Structures are given as C-alpha cells and as structure tokens.
C-alpha cells in the first residue's frame, strides 16, 4: 500500500488535498497560469490582427491617427511598465528567499509604477476626449484627415482600454499580494501567488511592448 495515502499527513498547510506534494501543486498552478496567459495572448491577438489588416488597407489614415498620439508620453509609459516588471520580478525573488521587507517594498514600487502609467493614460485620454478624438461615430475632430482615422481610434481605444483594464486588475491583485506579504504569508516554501501574479504582470508588460510601437511609432 502506498505510503502517500492522502487525506492526511499534509506536510504543510498550503497543499490542497488532491496533490501528492507541494512541488506538484506549484508546477500545476504554474502550468495553469501559462495556459491562461496563452488565452490572453490570443484574445489580444484578435485585436492586433484586425489592427494590422486595416493598417495594410489604410496606411495614410494610420499615420494621420498616430500624429495625434504623444510619443514622449508613450515612451515614459513604456519605461514605467518595464520598471514595474523589474520590481515585480524582484518581489518574486525576494519572496522566494524569505526577504519579507524587500518583497513588500518591491510590490509597493510595482504599484507606484503602475499607478504612474494609469495617471499618464488618464491625461492622454482626457486630452483626446477634449479634442473630439473618440472612437467610431463619435469621432468629431475638427482638423480633418482621412475618414478612417475614426477606425484607427476605435482600435486605439479598444486596445489601450482593454490593456488598461488589465493594468487595473493587476494593481488590485498586487495590492492584495502586498497585504499578504506584509502579514508574512509568503516564504521559500510557499510563494505561488507572487509568482503567478508576477507572470500575469509581465504579460501585461509584453502586450504593451507591442502596443507602443504599433500605435505610437508608425510613420
């Protein structure tokens, strides 16, 4: 009879009953997260495909649309997200090596960079609303240009909007992690949530790495 008879003998409190050991649980959770990230890639992928096909048909509208975007603001946001990814991976590293205060500090820094990203996004959006640059039939920019700019901004708002929602969700999750880390719930034996949310956060970064040149740098 197997000595790993289940239902009891939990070697520590975080293991769920249907896993044989916590390594199996960690690997499984990570596999699940990667599968989820694959679904995210294909979901955003749909937007990229539509964007690319329409860009191939209306290059001048895309160039005209891109002139309304601020390259400097976009670059600052890129730097913010890259730095937040760095602090996130440092938080994962710190939590896996039992450094509680470093974990908390890095998570807070990640939150701060993400917050900075959202603030800049807010200024960009409100500036565009002010100029009448809205998606689709609400596009009322007075400066002229190809009519398909309305479609460009349809994509712009859909892509950055859905990305922004992902940033917001990430911020909520990171805030939750910070509280748990402050309570000392993570250690080298159990830091799965930090690791998984870290992966999610890097994916949000990855998507922005493509969004930035495609939206801000086409010319």
């Amino acid at each position, binding site marked *: 009879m197997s000595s790993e008879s289940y239902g009891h003998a939990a070697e520590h409190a975080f293991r769920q009953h*249907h896993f044989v050991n916590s390594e199996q649980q960690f690997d499984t959770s990570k596999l699940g997260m990667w599968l989820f990230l694959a679904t995210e890639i294909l979901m955003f992928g749909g937007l990229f495909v539509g964007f690319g096909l329409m860009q191939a048909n209306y290059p001048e509208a895309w160039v005209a649309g891109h002139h309304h975007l601020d390259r400097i603001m976009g670059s600052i946001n890129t730097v913010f997200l890259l730095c937040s990814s760095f602090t996130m991976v440092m938080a994962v590293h710190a939590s896996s090596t039992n450094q509680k205060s470093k974990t908390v500090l890095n998570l807070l820094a990640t939150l701060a960079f993400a917050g900075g990203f959202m603030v800049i996004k807010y200024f960009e959006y409100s500036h565009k609303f002010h100029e009448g640059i809205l*998606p689709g039939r609400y596009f009322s920019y007075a400066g002229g240009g190809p009519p398909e700019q309305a*479609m460009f901004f349809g994509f712009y708002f859909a892509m950055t909007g859905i990305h922004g929602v992902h940033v917001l969700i990430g911020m909520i999750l990171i805030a939750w992690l910070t509280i748990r880390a402050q309570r000392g719930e993570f250690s080298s034996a159990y830091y799965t949530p930090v690791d998984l949310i870290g992966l999610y956060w890097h994916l949000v970064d990855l998507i922005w790495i493509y969004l930035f040149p495609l939206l801000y740098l086409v010319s």
Partner: protein
Amino acid sequence: MADIVATPKSQSHGDHYDVDYLNDGSLLSWLTTVDHKKLGVMYLWSILFMFFLGGVFALLVRLELMNPGQTIMTAEQYNKAFTLHGAIMVFLVIIPSIPAALGNFALPLMLGAKDVAFPRLNLLSFWIYVTGAIIATVAMVTGGVDTGWTFYTPYSTTTDGPVALMTFAAFVLGFSSILTGVNFVATVHKLRAPGMGWFKMPLFVWGIYATAIIQVLATPVLAITLLLLIFERLFGVGVFDPKLGGDPVLFQHFFWFYSHPAVYIMILPGMAIISEVIPTMSQKVFFGYKATAFSSVAIAIVSFVVWGHHMFTSGQSQLAGAIFSFLTFLVGIPSAIKVFNWITTMYKGSISLAAPMLYALMFLILFGIGGLTGIFLGTMSVDIHLHDTYFVVAHFHYVMMGSTLIAFLAGLHFWWPKMFGRMYNERAAQIAAFFVFIGFNATFLPQFLLGSRGMPRRYYDYLPEFTPLHQVSTVGSWLLGLGFVIMAGYLFASLRKKMDAPSNPWHARTLDWQTSSPPITHNFHEIPVLKQGPYDYFKPFEPSVEGYHE
C-alpha cells in the same frame, strides 16, 4: 450500495471519506461544492434542462414548416425561434455537454486522481456557465434575437433587439469553456496516477485533452470577436462595416477562427466516448490505440486551418477558398483512421448490445453520413450550389446531433450507473434508442434531398413542391421527441429505486470502474497504481485499486 469493502487503513480518514458523494453533505452544500463529480452532475442537469428548452424550439420550428405559409407563428417569431434553437443548442448544450458534464465526472476518476487540478476554478466555471445561461434567457425574454447563432455583420450590427446582450451571454459562456479547458489540460498533465504514462491513458482522456487544447486556443478569439461586435454596435467603429471602410468578411474570419474549431470541440469528445464504449462493450483490446490517440490531436490542430470553408460564397478570395478547400480534406484522414479503428476493434469481439453500445453503433452510421456529406460541402465547386441550403442543415445535424449528441447519450447510458449508482431499465432504453434512430433519420435524411433541390435554409416559407419532404421531416421530429420522452421516463424512474448498480457493470478495465458506484467523495481510498493498460482484455483482469472486487 458500495460494494468495495473499506480497508482497515481507510479508517484513519474518518467516516466522512467513505460516504458516497451523492449523500455527502446537504443539498445546499452542492451549490458551493468543489467536488468534480457533483459539478459534473450539476452541469448534467443544467444541460439537460437547456436541451429540453432547445428541443422545444426545434419542435416549434419543425411544426411551422409543416406547411407552406404561416402555420403556427409569424416570420419574425420564426426567425427568433431558430436563432434561439441554434444558440441554445450550440453554446449551452453541445459545447459543454460532454466535456463539462461527463468529462468533469469521469476524467479525474479515469486518471486515478482525487479531483481536477483546480477545483475552485471548476466551481467558478460552473457558475459562469449559469450566469451566461441567465443572461441568454434575459435576452430571449426581452425581445429575442433574429441573427442566427452566427451573429453575422452587418445584419447583427444594424438589427434591433438585444443582440449586444445575447452576444455578451456567448462571451460569458466562452469564459466558462476556457476555464474548463485550462483545468483539464493541467489535470491531464499533472494528475495522472502513478504508472499511467501518456499511452496508458484511456482514449476518452486523449479526446478530452485534445478538446481542451482547442478550448484554450480558440475560445479567446471568440471573446474578442464578440467584444468587437458589441463595440461596433455601441460606437460604430466600422471594422466590419463596408460603409465605413471595414470588411464584413473579416467578421466571418474572426467568427469562424473560433467556431470552426468549436465544431471539433463538439465532435472530439463524442469520438472520445465512442473510443471508450466500443472496446468495453466488445471486451477487446483497442485496435490502433496510438493512431487513435494521435488522430485526436491531429484533428485538434487541423481544425485551426480550415475555417474558410464556411465562407466560399462570402466574397472571400478564390485563392483563400482554394487553400481552405484543400486543407479541409485533411480532416478526413484522422477521422477515417478513427472509424476504421472502431470497426476493427469490434471485429471478433464478444459484443454486448446494451444501450451504450446501441448508441455507439448509431454514432458510427450517423457520423459516417455526416462526415462524408462534409466532404461534399468542403469541395468549393459543389459548395457553391449547396451553400446555405437544407443540405448544410442536414449535414451539421448529422454531425452535431447525430454524432455528438448520440455519443453524449452513449456516454450518459455508459456512466449513469457510476454517476447515480442505479441501473436503468434496459428494455425501455432499447425502445427509446429505436425511436431516436428512426426519428432522427426521418427528420434529417429528407433535408439532404430538400437541400440538393434548392430549399434554402432559415426560410420561413417555401415552394409547394417541397411540402411532402418537409412533412416527413416534421413527423420525424415527433418520433425523435417521443424517443427522448421515453428516455426521460426510464432515467427518472431509475433514480427512484434504491442503489443497485455494481461497481463495474460493463466489465471495463479503466480506473473509473474500480471504485464504488457511486464513487466515494475522494474517489479512491488509496492512490491507484496502474497495473494494466486501459484495454488489456487479452490478459486476466488485475485491478489497480486496492480492495476492488466486482
């Protein structure tokens, strides 16, 4: 009840673990359960309810088509009725039927696991399904949708009615499907019992695994497609609107990138069940196990490169059409491998014609017809004539209903004793199977003729010369309905009996049959250690679970 004798060691688990799962906990506790078996049963009842609803709409549609002109409803009501029939059957019944109901129940048992990899995610996925079903119902009640289940633009962006809400329901249901897929892939990779290598897995697991891969890779595109459609309705962005420079055919590309693989989300689990029922009911080793296992994965992959065969007449370029037409024929190869292997498995087996096997044999005939007519439709030149006729309707009913749903019934009758611990009345089951088979063919064979003679699909009215065939089809739908009424009768009747099912009524070799009927809460007292392959009928049976006896 349970005829496994509890081993003394299992005493240490406490009594809680020895109770069969149906009687473990109050009725209310089912709503928050993370037990894969209970979730499977809850999916089953929800899906059967939705099947009833979709079936009522089907009967109404058929009744309306009894005679030319108005019979029982107006043209607008007819458009809504067939849309609801299609949307309910596709999104709420067929897609979740086998993976979510039977898969949830049987997959961990077959792997020798205690549960799926992420039990709480499984619960979430169920409640997302329920939410989606409720939103869809609200959309139906608040006016209904007349776009067809495909939501083609530009009609879907311009018509009145709660299209955005119905689309949102499909979007929500997509998430339920994604989470189930993620869960199953992780479960198959990480929770197999000791000794169960990839080629010792039952073929049902292979089929569900291939399905889960499609769910993970294709469903997100449906999500973004439907989101873009909602966006289009709200803001008029114009991506799919030729007036604004967009392309309605692009919507069809987006839609079918998901929905063609979704057709395989429907058929692969059906094939998976047949691969389980046929060797068990023939008591014979599976002929060509590896070829069948790989053909499931091959179908999953090929399914992603054939979607354009839905669009031969949509204004897609001829080059793209020709490529898609060629690739479509590739699907025939793995499908034929499977059919060949099923038939060869039966050869010289000791075949039992119990209800699950009756449905499996039915599947072979109906899938043969459905699959071969698919080749007609995949041929671009033939499709120009047959596109959007009743030939297409007949074809996809032969694969969706005649194959997937019949396989679901095979699986339902196969695992019913394991799920509920009761045997149903076999004679009643045979009578019901007879009516289902006759009724199904009477309903849909005439539709091939109607279609090849030019009867367009989705039409409210038709020319008088089509009347006799339409009437045969409508009468067939009643026979089919009668079959389902009988089935409901004997299945409910079996639930009122006391539990009488043996652990292994079909003398199967897979792990799901080596625990009690119904299983205990944690499936097995001890982790099974695999001693035999799933279909080693040429060897004496050697149970992999301690304490097993029939």
